[in-house]
């Protein structure tokens, strides 16, 4: 008997050790449950991080746009309107008013990581007899490339953007038969045109994007769009992508801009991510519940089996409180030990799965992320679940009438 252990712990551990078979079975049950939770949590976190990375690295999480132009009817006097049909005005390419101030305000926000002003609009790229419509995005590379990681996708040429340089996608390069060093004539609808040199070709992994997206220096776009000194959008990334919508609403409320978050513009994608998260949470909750019920069932049986022991302990002066403790401790110990074994199982299964499950191109399906926090949380939650599961059996044990218990 360990001298430093209190009575309730000694009794709890001895009872667990004596009912070896039961203890082993329930420990296996808990371990499998915790293993599944650890495995699913880590795998889904990895898959989701990967998914989000793929989708969200090719676009900003919040875009600030100039407010829509609205047609207002002329008024002759207070409350009197001309009889007129109010038409929705066509939206011209407009600059964000005071965009430098807004950009600085964004950079001062702690939840905004990057704020990159861009000037973009539709253009026609012409080379020889071929012409394609393109989206011309003018930006400050050092900021913008933190949001859309074009440098990671460059397949030919280099990442150099002087005032007469342009980066185009692989599809556009194919369509125009152009390669690095070739020149393109880029023309706007208003017939402003400029000859630009292709310095780099990128592959964003999406045919449409590779066909339409082109990148130039901010100034080049400003002059082509006739937006001297202006920008059409300010692109933002935020530290918590799920808070994007809230942040967007805050910005919209305080500044004269429209703020569109990725959550609002990619509602379906966001719903899919949320649905995955929710189903993950639900599955984990139900696994935890079934583990809890398993612990409770085994402890209830143990209380019935040990009722004579409990009766004798009560007869020799053991308080109800001490009996209560014995079974709560058993629940907690089962939960904790089960979570240790389960964490090892879960981590092992995860590594195996990570090793076996590959994408078509042989790259990993998801990044293997084994955060210590996950295991600490699993152990803590399993222990608490065990204690909680022990409550009903413990109360039952503590309320046993010693006379009845001893008589059996």
């Amino acid at each position: 008997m360990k001298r430093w252990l209190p009575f309730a712990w000694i009794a709890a551990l001895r009872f667990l050790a004596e009912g070896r078979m039961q203890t082993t079975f329930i420990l296996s049950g808990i371990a499998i449950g915790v293993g599944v939770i650890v495995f699913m949590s880590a795998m889904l976190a990895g898959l989701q991080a990967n998914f989000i990375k793929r989708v969200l690295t090719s676009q900003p999480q919040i875009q600030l746009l100039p407010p829509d132009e609205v047609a207002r009817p002329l008024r002759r006097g207070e409350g009197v309107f001309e009889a007129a049909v109010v038409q929705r005005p066509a939206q011209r390419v407009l600059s964000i008013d005071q965009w430098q101030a807004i950009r600085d305000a964004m950079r001062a926000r702690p939840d905004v990581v990057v704020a990159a002003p861009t000037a973009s609009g539709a253009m026609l790229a012409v080379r020889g007899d071929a012409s394609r419509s393109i989206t011309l995005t003018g930006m400050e590379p050092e900021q913008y490339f933190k949001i859309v990681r074009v440098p990671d996708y460059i397949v030919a040429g280099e990442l150099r953007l002087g005032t007469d340089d342009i980066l185009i996608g692989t599809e556009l390069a194919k369509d125009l038969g152009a390669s690095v060093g070739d020149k393109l004539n880029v023309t706007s609808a208003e017939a402003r045109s400029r000859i630009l040199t292709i310095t780099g070709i990128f592959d964003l992994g999406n045919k449409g994007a590779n066909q339409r997206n082109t990148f130039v220096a901010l100034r080049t776009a400003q002059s082509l769009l006739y937006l001297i000194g202006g920008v059409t959008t300010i692109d933002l990334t935020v530290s918590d992508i799920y808070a994007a919508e809230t942040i967007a609403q805050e910005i919209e409320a305080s500044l004269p801009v429209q703020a569109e978050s990725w959550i609002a513009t990619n509602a379906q994608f966001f719903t899919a991510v949320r649905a995955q998260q929710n189903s993950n949470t639900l599955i984990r909750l139900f696994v935890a519940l079934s583990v809890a019920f398993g612990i409770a069932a085994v402890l209830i049986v143990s209380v019935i089996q040990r009722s004579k022991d409990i009766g004798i302990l009560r007869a020799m002066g053991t308080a109800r409180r001490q009996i209560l403790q014995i079974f709560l401790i058993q629940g907690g110990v089962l939960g904790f030990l089960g979570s240790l074994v389960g964490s090892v199982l879960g981590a092992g299964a995860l590594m195996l799965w990570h090793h076996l499950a590959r994408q078509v191109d042989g790259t990993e399906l998801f990044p293997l992320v084994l955060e210590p926090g996950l295991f600490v949380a699993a152990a803590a939650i399993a222990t608490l679940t065990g204690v909680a599961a022990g409550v009903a059996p413990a109360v039952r044990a503590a309320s046993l009438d010693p006379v009845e218990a001893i008589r059996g």
Partner: protein
Amino acid sequence: MADVLVLDQIRKSYNVGTPVEVEVLHGIDLAIRPGEFVALMGPSGSGKSTLLNIIGLLDRPTSGRLLINGEDTTDLPDAALTKLRGHTIGFVFQYHYLISAFTAAENVMMPMLVDRGHPDRQMEERAAELLDRVGLGKWRDNRATNMSGGQQQRVAVARALAMDPTLVLADEPTGNLDTASANAVFELMRQINRERSTTFLIVTHNMDLARQCDRIVEVVDGRITPARQPPG
């Protein structure tokens, strides 16, 4: 010296307040002096188990007073009753209920452990001494399941003595043993009673054993029949 145990008009009813209320003890008066070795006899269903449970503070009477060492237990709350039970009363049960998860020595230590919370050297020494006294010093590290019925019952006697109780209650301690073991266990209790002046109250059906006690208290139909001295 005050009586160890005084029962004053103890009544016990079951199903109180229902149409099937039944009184099993009808006003029991009983006093036991320090150092007495008393046999409690009576046919099955006479109420002696109920009486023993009340004396052992495991059950409460419906009315009447119960004094242990002069202390009135009637109005004590459950927790205080549990503590008093642990300190003043030792139990030996018919089916020698040792706790199988523990060794003989640990079983003997158990009442002290429950009381003090942590194991200590003094408890270990006391357990060893008591096991030596009941002749099982060499068996101290054996699990209860590895011992014979007689041995287990001797360990139970040692355990009942662990807290130096005022009163040891034994509910048919020899009822489940063969004659030789039964006699040995009874003799052990008798010796301890003489050596240490520990008071014993023993429920038994065995008239031979009862005759060796200082006094026989007989319960019939929930009443105590006039006290009689064992012949011889």
